[in-house]
C-alpha cells in the first residue's frame, strides 16, 4: 500500500488546515448572526480534525483518529447546547444578533 503523503505531502494538508482555520476566525469576527458564528466555529473544529487525520497518516498511528472521534463528540454536545441557548435567546429577545446581547454590560 502506497502512502498518500508521498504524493501530496504533509505541508499541503497543513496549509489547507491553516487557511480553513483562518476562514473560521474571520467568520467569527465578521458576522453578527449567531448561527453563522456557530458555523464558523464548526469550520475551525473541522480544520483541526483534518490536521489530526493527516498527522495520523503521517505517523502511521491510529491515536490521531481517536482524538478526532472525541473532538466530534464534544462538537456535537457543544452544538446541541449552543443551539438550545440560541433558541432561548431568540424567544426572549426576538433576535439573535450578537451585537444586541449586552444585558451584562455594566
Amino acid at each position, binding site marked *: 500500500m*502506497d502512502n498518500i503523503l508521498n*504524493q501530496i505531502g504533509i505541508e499541503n494538508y497543513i496549509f489547507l488546515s491553516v487557511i480553513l*482555520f483562518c476562514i473560521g476566525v474571520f467568520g467569527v469576527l465578521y458576522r453578527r448572526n449567531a448561527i453563522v458564528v456557530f458555523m464558523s466555529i*464548526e469550520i475551525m473544529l473541522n480544520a483541526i480534525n483534518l490536521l489530526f487525520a493527516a498527522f495520523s497518516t503521517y505517523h502511521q498511528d491510529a491515536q490521531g483518529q481517536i482524538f478526532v472521534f472525541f473532538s466530534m*463528540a464534544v462538537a456535537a454536545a457543544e452544538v446541541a447546547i449552543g443551539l*438550545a441557548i440560541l433558541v432561548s435567546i431568540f424567544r426572549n429577545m426576538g433576535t439573535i444578533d450578537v451585537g444586541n446581547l449586552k444585558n451584562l454590560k455594566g
Partner: protein
Amino acid sequence: MIQIPDIANATPIQILFCVLSVITLATAFLTIYSKKPMHNAIYLVICFTSISGHYLLLNAQFLALVNLIVYIGAIMILMLFTIMLMNLNKENEVHKPRITRLGAIVVFCLMCLVLIAMFMNSKPIADGSYDVTGEDYQSIQVLGKLLLNEYMVPFEFASVLLLVAMIGAVLLSKKEKIEK
C-alpha cells in the same frame, strides 16, 4: 519549502486533492459570505462533504463515514431546524461597523501570513519520503480495539458528556412556566 507541483505531470490523486481543497475553501468562504442563513447551511454541508472526501483520500474510511453521519446527519440538521424554527431566512441583517469588518479582514490576512510562514519554515521529521510499515493502523478493527482498551475511560466520559448535553438542551429549550 513549498514545492510547486508540476501541473502537467500531476497524478490523479494530486488533481483530486486540489479539486477537493478548492471546493472546501470556496464553500467555507461562501458559508461566511452568503447573506441567507439557509444558503450558509447548504454551503457548510458541501464543505463538510468535501472534508469527508479528504478523509477518504487519507484512507480513513471509518472517519469519513462518521464525519458524514455526525456532521451532516446530526449537526447540520440541527442547525437547519433551528434556522427554520426562528424563521431567519431574510436579508435584513445589520452589518457590523466598517472598522470592525476591516479589522476582521486584517486579522484574517495576518493570521494566514503568520501561520503559513511559521509552518513553511518548520522542518519535517521525515524529509521527502514517508516509509510505509505495512501495518494496519486505521481499519475499524484497530480503531475499535484502541478505543475500548486504551481509551476506555475517555470513551465512557464522552457518553456521560453527551447525556448531560442532551438533558441540558431539553431543559434550556423547554418553555418556562409563568410564575405566579
